[in-house]
């Protein structure tokens, strides 16, 4: 079996448009594919956006975008749908096991379009 997952060479600080802001459901995530990377983007209840790596480091499955979004002690978080570990939407750190974290990405809205930077 062979797996083609090598990401393309990363360009520096380039914003990638990924979807319309209105495509995102409040307090829910969605996954976008940017230069071969899976990025989970989330829209908070207050409209704020967050972007994390989509891979759940505990299970190895690419599923964080499908977790339940909420807060823990006021910090916005997503709970992995696999085994429920919570990850901070701000820092990517696992709130149940600080030795584990997932990457975070910059995210913004330009003219109603959500953009992600993987630099």
């Amino acid at each position, binding site marked *: *079996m062979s797996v083609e997952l090598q990401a393309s060479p990363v360009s520096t600080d380039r914003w990638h448009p990924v979807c319309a802001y209105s495509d995102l459901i409040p307090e829910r995530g969605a996954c976008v594919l940017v230069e071969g990377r899976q990025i989970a983007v989330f829209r908070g209840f207050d409209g704020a956006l967050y972007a994390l790596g989509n891979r759940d480091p505990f299970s190895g499955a690419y599923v964080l975008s499908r977790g339940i*979004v909420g807060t823990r002690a006021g910090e916005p978080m997503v709970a992995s749908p696999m085994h429920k570990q919570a990850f901070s939407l701000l820092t990517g750190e696992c709130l149940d096991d600080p030795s584990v974290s997932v990457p975070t990405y910059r995210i913004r809205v330009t003219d109603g379009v959500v953009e992600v930077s993987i630099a």
Partner: protein
Amino acid sequence: MTRLVVVGHGPTAYRLIETLYAKGFGGSVTVLGEEPRPAYDRVALTSYLSGKSAEDLTYPVPEGVVLRLGAKVTGIDREARTVTAADGHTEPYDVLVLATGSSPFVPPVPGKDLPGCFVYRTIDDLDAIAAAAEGASSGVVIGGGLLGLEAADALRGLGLVTHVVEMSPWLMPRQVDEGGGSILKNHIEALGLAVHTGAGVKSIEPGEDGRVARLVKPDGAEIEAQVVVFSAGVRPRDELARASGLPVGERGGIVVDEGMRTADPAIYAVGECALAGGMVYGLVGPCFTQAEVAADRIMGGDAVFTGADMSTKLKLLGVEVASFGALDGALDVTFMDPVGGVYKKLFVSDDARTLLGGICVGDAGPYNSLRPLVGRELPASPTELLFAGTGGVDVDLPDDAQVCSCNNVTKGQICEAIASEGLTDVAGIKKCTRAGTTCGSCVPMLKQILVKSGVEVSKAMCEHFAYSRAELFDIVRVRGIGTFSQLIAEHGTGRGCDVCKPAVASILASLNGGHILDGEQAALQDTNDHFLANIQKNGTYSVVPRVPGGEITPEKLIVIGEVARDFGLYTKITGGQRIDLFGARVEQLPQIWKRLVDAGFESGHAYGKALRTVKSCVGSTWCRYGVQDSVGLAIALELRYRGLRSPHKLKSAVSGCARECAEARSKDFGIIATEQGWNLYVGGNGGFKPRHAELLAADLSTDDLIKIIDRFLMFYIRTADRLQRTAAWIENLEGGLDYLRQVIIDDSLGICAELEAQMERHVAGYFDEWRATIEDPEKLRRFVSFVNAPGTPDPSIAFETERDQIKPVLIPLEVARS
């Protein structure tokens, strides 16, 4: 290696062996039991006739124990240190424990051996009584003590006109005094039983068929009876010890020292066969303590048995009866209410400062808090104490007060376990200390101790809601709350989490109906409900179409096969008589379901905390043993309750006869056909902690059955905790199954009509949520792997082949990270 041989396998032997193993006993254990089955819980014997199986009552046998059943021991050779069984088998021992129990005493009245005369001790006895009760119309129990009334309850349960004959002037003379006995008699007569106190038996007379026909009292009066049960006390089984020259008491019982050792240092005796300190103990608590003492001695310890608390609290024929401490004293304070059927008496020392004992009939409320205070200074006036535990006064126990008399656990030990193990619930206390695990009467006490020891028994669902699920359910119901945002703004803090959001989504779905992916509710669902499928380890999903009752046409089977083949899915038959299709990517789910819905399938809700499946055996339509149409009922029930959102998954099954091929008793609600209708069992589950469902109601018509299930399910949905299966829910209901029966059968809370109406709304409002999803473009938008590349499948999902089907392969991290 020490060779331990135990003669007898009853509860005491069970406890001895269990204790030895818990203490790390390294020798061999061989048990010779006379009965054909391993030790079972005799305290719960009567429940055998009301639906519990022998298996339910049987104690576990620790691994490594050699158990020889049906092996009656006939001799001990103390010189050679061997025992010999009736079949000639000889077993050598280093240590021998006699746990031979007792045998019922049958008074020498003429006719005592007639067919139709029984004793009440073993499961075999009960089988014989039940068999004789068929075709009989009335029965009599000789003996009105604790066990006699149990036996009377059993006869009444078997549908016989029941008489109780007791020599003493009142019932239960060992536990209550004359006043208590008279109140008890009133209660029992009100149930339709005939009580004859101060009455002997002259003879038992046969009818023309040679079987028992009547009992004749000394005054010549006759009681018609085709079944006679002797329950006139027990005698220690000491014949083996006697024959081998071990000293026995004048009135029987193997003499033991305070370490439970007989005159032969290699031989111990425990339980009802032992005479300890001049007493033979028949209650399970003292017998267990003896077993523990003997086990400790065998392990080289120095534990002693110095007598035991003979307090009892029980519910006989629905009447609470309790007695504790001494049953006489210098002074007594009595409360008697013949109208309400309550009698309470406390015995105190002559200075009225020390509690000596007490008797309760009709309301044993004070028992739990007063029993541990025997021999201590009264914490309140005797009058106040008569109403302790019933809301009157709150009694504080000293640390050395014994809370669980069955397992000899003090309040101090419980408090210490709470503190050191950080226990927060009764289940934890039971596990750590064993308190409350035998008769259960101290469980309310355990709850109080938990609360008093400062353990904040938090009912908060999570950091966002300070309420339990049941409380939130009521808030949503009473205040008519329609959204999570409203609920958390008005009654919570923060923005919720993976604990409270799905729980609230379930409450909203149970109460308001509608599509679970409508509006804001969609964001509350966990991934399974969000995609209406079950997530698997590689992030793909599985699909389970509903197959009501497990009945499926060849055409539909072919459709499932074609769909699985066309989408390359792994297929497996589930335990619930359905077919699971694995390996679907999110964007495939609507396409798969379009095909299934077009062929007439609908959602199986395998992804939801909802009704899953109503399994069935083939039933009377095909099966030569079946007595009812189990498939038809299973389909009707599955169609009625499909889509019902609940605190946890709900499983059911219907068996068409007592052979129980559908395994209904392992379900949340299981139905077993009888000649007359249906028996309904509730609270079963498989899983981590398997539990058999218990009989809730018997011989129901189909209409009544459905009505009771409606109420059962809605009451569960209203009051259970989040992720609490029906088994745990019933266990945690104060009053358990009896209370449940009062609420949903006797309508003690007056809510049955409301529960039924709520179920009617569910049935009327049901629609297939997968059909509704594929018909709604808005809902379909979420079914993509990537919002910016809707046509692209997730490249991390890969499969290899095993046994001709796909199998997920997880991509190693190094590769994925690049």
